[in-house]
């Protein structure tokens, strides 16, 4: 137990924890029994309601939805990375017009709901005479939305590099693009890989919203699969939930694994370094990686406190980077004001 709130327990504390454990297990069993009983009396546990999910044709239909989800997520990811990258560079540009346009784009798409972006991609393009279908509409909306989010991740990744890197590159006479290609991006991208994978997990969750424009992802298929009338809402959505859960969970695990590997290879603090981007899933990722490191240290028989100390130091460094980013933002603002 390593928590700031609880110290090593004495004999009385341990006894109390034992009592609390027994009570909470009992309460848990009672609650679970209540749920099962309620499901039973509502007739949701009968085999007939679950049988449709054992028929291969039905499952194949649902898994086809999963394939569609993954297709849309991957397509959206590839394009958002490319476009987000250019917006990040644009926001760091010295040209005020370019910077202003990029800021406007990023702030706009970061402050509207994804659903609104999806409606723009579907009805908006339709009104503009472009009948591109649900898949393209969804991907366009996801790209518009996520490229704004990713551009902030990229910007934070670039900003988190030591200023000396840019200065050294300039000192040996590198121009902008060679400097970016050879010095800045290889380092920034390596730092950002876990955050990008975490964003991919979020994105694959968001593909479910393609439902509203009729894209055949898992939720839509879960409502329209051949055995739906034999099963019911409850069963269908539980199965859809399980399918999504497994997909997103695997991606989240991958992100966490990458984050941990990144830390041991000591090229910065991975997701922690770009906390400034302010994305809840990514912040949670670095938290989880912290916890996993402590557990691993305890398993190796090392002193977990030392790991926590080094994490606190790393976080301090990361926050410093975040502060630098904020200062840079303020600097941007001041410079703009100065020019007006």
């Amino acid at each position, binding site marked *: *137990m390593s928590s700031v709130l609880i110290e090593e327990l004495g004999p009385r504390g341990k006894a109390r924890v034992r009592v609390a454990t027994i009570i*909470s297990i009992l309460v848990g069993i009672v609650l679970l029994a209540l749920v099962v009983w309620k499901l039973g009396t*509502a007739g949701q546990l009968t085999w007939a309601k679950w049988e449709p999910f054992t028929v291969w044709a039905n499952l194949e239909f649902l898994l086809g939805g999963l394939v569609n989800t993954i297709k849309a997520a991957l397509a959206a990811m590839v394009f958002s990375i490319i476009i987000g990258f250019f917006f990040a560079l644009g926001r760091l540009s010295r040209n005020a017009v370019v910077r202003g346009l990029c800021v406007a784009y990023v702030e*706009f798409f970061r402050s509207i*709901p994804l659903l609104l972006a999806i409606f723009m991609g579907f009805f908006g393009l339709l009104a503009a005479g472009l009948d591109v279908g649900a898949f393209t509409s969804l991907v366009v909306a996801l790209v518009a939305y996520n490229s704004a989010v990713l551009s902030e991740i990229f910007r934070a990744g670039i900003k988190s590099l030591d200023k000396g890197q840019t200065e050294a590159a300039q000192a040996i006479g590198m121009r902008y693009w060679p400097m970016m290609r050879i010095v800045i991006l290889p380092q920034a991208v390596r730092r950002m890989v876990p955050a990008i994978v975490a964003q991919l997990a979020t994105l694959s969750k968001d593909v479910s919203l393609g439902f509203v424009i009729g894209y055949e992802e898992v939720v839509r298929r879960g409502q329209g699969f051949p055995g739906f009338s034999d099963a019911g*809402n409850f069963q269908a959505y539980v199965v859809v939930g399980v399918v999504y859960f497994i997909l*997103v*969970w695997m991606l989240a695990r991958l992100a966490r694994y990458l984050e941990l590997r990144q830390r041991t290879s000591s090229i910065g603090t991975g997701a922690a370094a770009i906390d400034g981007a302010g994305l*809840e899933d990514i*912040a949670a990722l670095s938290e989880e990686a912290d916890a996993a490191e402590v557990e691993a240290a305890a398993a190796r028989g090392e002193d977990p406190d030392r790991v926590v100390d080094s994490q606190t130091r790393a976080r301090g460094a990361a926050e410093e980077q975040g502060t630098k980013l904020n200062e840079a933002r303020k600097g941007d603002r001041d410079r703009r004001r100065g020019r007006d």
Partner: protein
Amino acid sequence: MLEFYTEYWPDYWDGTLVTLRLVVISFTLACIIGVIIAGFRVSPVPPLRSFASGYVALFRNMPLLVVFFLAFFGVGDLGFVFGPFPTAAVALGMYTGAYMAEVIRSGINSVSSGQAEAGRAIGLGFIPLLREIVIPQAVRTVIAPIGNLFIANFKNTAVALTISVFELTYISRKLINETARTWLSLLGAAIIYTVILLFAGWVFRTLEDRYAIKR
């Protein structure tokens, strides 16, 4: 263009009010759930800890749309039928609550354990320790992530239109059908969201500047 907005302003206004109500209720609920789950997560009682991490994992890895459909249609099939608005508020509160629990937990863990040890050494009990030492320091580190969560929660209210809550995005969708002026309808909602969320972002940044720990 302006006539469009003067004519349909009442619809937008109604939608905005529904969205704001949904945000206030769901975010309050998320804070309550977040505190409880975070408390479970740092407690020394193993079953509570596993319950909390199960809760967080469940809601973090499922799309909000599925949560809404399970809460509305799924729970409806069990014989508990609630209106769309209460369902949306509770489902969204539970979803954001999982993220909130993580934020609060990380805030608590960000306080160095030496601080708490020092508190215990001078004889503070659990509650005074929390009140005087841990919470004042933890709050400062969680302002920014809570601000981000608030904004995410605000944007997520749009998903409630799938269970026919008449919030802002629903209104713009409805205006598309009624007026066939697609871009105007969508941009109206987008502008309202942008104005409110940029303002919210500014408020949280100001709070952070004022209270965050300067290192």
